[in-house]
């Protein structure tokens, strides 16, 4: 789907008169291969080159050296420009900068209309796209009446309406509340699973990356690490060196290991942590453990009623 070879990107720095005063290398020799249908997460500290990389994927920037292919098309080739941008749609951080129309459904229809899709098909695409992100019920609303998460989902619908094979999301949840964050990530994962759209998610929230097929970690314009979430997040020290973090549950497992517990290094979910901890309770000491369980369970029965009522 996406193939990058020896990509280098230099930004030109200019002095007050606008003359080139020097260059800053934001991407420094990146090779990357994304297969169709993959869910990819890109992590890296501020200034590590993530967003510059993202802009190469839909031809907002062009390589200083090296080559980027999107679905086999070289992004440098001018005749591919519009096709590349349609194939690799992009969603940015600020929901308020991406919505232009007064009504949700018109906003989603704007892209297809712009490329001359027949009216009837536009409406079909609008319906499909809004349904895919769970925003169909809000189609007649004014975007400024929506929450941040809803606005981002409308932005995603606008991208889907262009029928891309790939969507690049550049910190789509940075400005959202917890619910909004959940909604957006869920929408992205669903598109990946049900429509097979390749997703490239750039994020500062480590928990959002745990379901990715593969994670790329960037540092100083290079790919510093790559692997499955389990491979990446088991390296707590290394991630900290790169000014990043690991999910809280992974960190908790790591701390418990340091305190001497025999827990796998690569815990990614709370369920895995529970399994690991429960697996270690002394089985031969059945009586105490048994009594103990019974006591907890009877307490448990009351608790749910208390919180829900």
């Amino acid at each position, binding site marked *: 789907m996406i193939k990058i070879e020896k990509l280098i990107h230099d930004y030109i720095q200019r002095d007050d008169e606008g003359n080139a005063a020097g260059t800053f290398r934001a991407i420094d020799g990146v090779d990357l291969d994304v297969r169709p249908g993959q869910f990819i997460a890109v992590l890296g*500290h*501020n200034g590590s080159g993530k967003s510059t990389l993202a802009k190469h994927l839909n031809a907002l920037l062009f390589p200083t050296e090296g080559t980027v292919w999107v679905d086999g098309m070289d992004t440098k080739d001018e005749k591919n420009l519009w096709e590349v941008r349609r194939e690799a749609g992009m969603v940015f951080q600020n929901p308020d900068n991406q919505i232009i129309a007064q009504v949700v459904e018109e906003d989603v229809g704007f892209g297809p209309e712009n490329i001359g899709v027949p009216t009837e098909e536009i409406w079909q695409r609008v319906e499909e796209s809004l349904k895919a992100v769970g925003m169909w019920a809000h189609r007649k609303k004014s975007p400024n009446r929506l929450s941040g998460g809803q606005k981002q989902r409308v932005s995603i619908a606008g991208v889907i309406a262009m029928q891309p094979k790939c969507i690049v999301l550049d910190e789509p949840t940075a*400005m959202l509340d*917890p619910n909004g964050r959940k909604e957006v990530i869920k929408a992205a994962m669903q598109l990946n699973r049900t429509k097979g759209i390749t997703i490239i998610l750039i994020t500062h929230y480590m928990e959002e990356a745990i379901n990715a097929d593969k994670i790329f970690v960037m540092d100083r314009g290079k790919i510093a690490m790559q692997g499955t979430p389990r491979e990446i997040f088991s390296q707590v020290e290394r991630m900290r060196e790169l*000014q990043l973090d690991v999910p809280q549950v992974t*960190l908790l497992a790591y701390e418990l290991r340091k*305190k001497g517990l025999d827990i796998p290094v690569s815990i990614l979910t709370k369920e895995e942590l529970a399994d690991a901890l429960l697996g270690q*309770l*002394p089985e031969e000491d059945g009586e105490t453990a048994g009594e103990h369980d019974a006591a907890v369970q009877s307490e448990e029965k009351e608790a749910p009623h208390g919180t*829900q009522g």
Partner: protein
Amino acid sequence: MGLKVEDISFLYERGTAMQVTALDHVSAEIPDNQFIGLIGHTGSGKSTFVQTLNGLLKVTSGHIYYNGEDIDGDKFDKKKLRSDVGLVFQYPEHQLFEVDVISDVMFGPRNLGLSDAEAKKRALEALESVRMPKSLYKSSPFDLSGGQKRRAAIAGVLAMRPKILILDEPTAGLDPKGRDEILGLIAGMKRELNMTIILVSHSMDDVARYVDRIMVMGGGKLLYDDEPVKVFRHVTELEELGLAAPQITYIMKLLKERGLDVSSDALTVEEAAAEIMAHRRELHV
């Protein structure tokens, strides 16, 4: 003494068809020297609330007292309130504009009518408080990194020497290390300068780790106002409000459900690790 908020309401577009109740009979006390977290989903009224606290918005009904004086009273000095209650907006670095960092930070104190010498003194103090490297004082604010820009912008408000500092999502868009740096900095400033901090945040993990008290807003009302452990016991209600509990709370809840007799009150990784270890010692594992 601090701020006392008494039954305030605020309506946008009052008397029109567009009327929205952004604050609905809110009462609270904001004492000196406290670290408060303010949480609520987008549109819950928290931004409106903090803007009434320094007089940027005038309440529709109710009263706000600062050190015992009604801030809407005739004789009240609003200018003083605005320097005493500092407000750092979201993405404050977008408001940097001066030729160099130090001039930018001096802008506020100068605007208060202070002499250049006094403004400079305060700016230097503020820049030190945000740990800005001295070598950058004369740089253009636009040449700084994202985290440095944000610290410069916070220094601009600090130079007004606020007694209460309100920060609206100061970590939005920062990487994990940048987040830790800014929050550590804010906690340090609170200790050194004995300020009251109100941290508006969407990150329950951050709030859980740093604050003494949490205020939860929803639909313009103040729904919870208590210490973090107590507030985060209302996981279900928080979720209904579009919020959440810290990740650690969910982990501990699950461990408890699966039969480990641990308290689900732990809010941070350190607390959780200590709780699990204590539990194991009890079982003599």
